[in-house]
């Protein structure tokens, strides 16, 4: 009986320390200049602000994640980026699940109209507006790139891979946002 009590106390202590560490890190990063891999960050203030014409976004094919900030509510997160036909997109998955509703608050905010933000790539900040794309041929290129860049499919993506990925878009399980300049 005494052994069980000691084990319970040790487990309880570890859980308390773990939870306190998570809460502290969440708080700490909420004030930081950008996100970490696991925790959302605050306003991105460092980095040159891009002005002028749009760049050739194909360079993002070599970049796995970027930092994306939404201004309302002010928070930033690390996210996949997809280039297709000269435009750039971000995706948000699990949107029809309970976890998605908790985890992807930013996507709901952007869809509701609080869609102005900043994209930071290689230390350069690009002012952006997130516009949700839920249907249309435009999604074919996004689906193909998502399947090959992040889904492990062989390039060029097969019709089946494109169809399956696009079905996830059109069912509302995965939301696609175009990052338009502003």
């Amino acid at each position, binding site marked *: 009986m005494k052994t069980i009590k000691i084990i319970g*106390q040790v487990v*309880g202590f570890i859980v*308390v320390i773990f939870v306190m*560490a998570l809460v*502290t*890190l969440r708080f*700490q990063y909420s004030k930081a200049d950008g996100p970490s*891999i*696991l*925790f959302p960050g605050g306003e991105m203030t460092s980095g040159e602000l891009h002005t002028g014409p749009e760049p050739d976004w194909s360079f993002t094919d070599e970049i796995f994640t970027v930092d994306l900030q939404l201004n309302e509510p002010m928070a930033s997160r690390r996210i996949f980026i997809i280039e297709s036909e000269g435009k750039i997109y971000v995706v948000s998955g699990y949107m029809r699940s309970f976890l998605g509703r908790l985890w992807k608050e930013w996507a709901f905010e952007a869809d509701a109209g609080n869609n102005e933000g900043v994209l930071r790539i290689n230390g350069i900040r690009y002012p952006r507006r997130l516009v949700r794309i839920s249907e249309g041929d435009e999604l074919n290129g996004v689906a193909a790139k998502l399947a090959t860049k992040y889904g492990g499919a062989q390039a060029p993506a097969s019709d089946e891979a494109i169809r399956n990925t696009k079905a996830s878009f059109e069912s509302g399980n995965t939301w696609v946002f175009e990052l338009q300049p502003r």
Partner: protein
Amino acid sequence: MTLRNYCLLCSAGSIVTVLAILYVPGVADTFESILLLFLMTNAN
């Protein structure tokens, strides 16, 4: 250990953890790396 002492131990551990993450360089990064490794290992 009495309940009072146990609560004191948990409180002290919590305070040390919070202060270390906030003020000791590298502790936050180390904790996040461990957490990330745990998630990567157990994701499936």
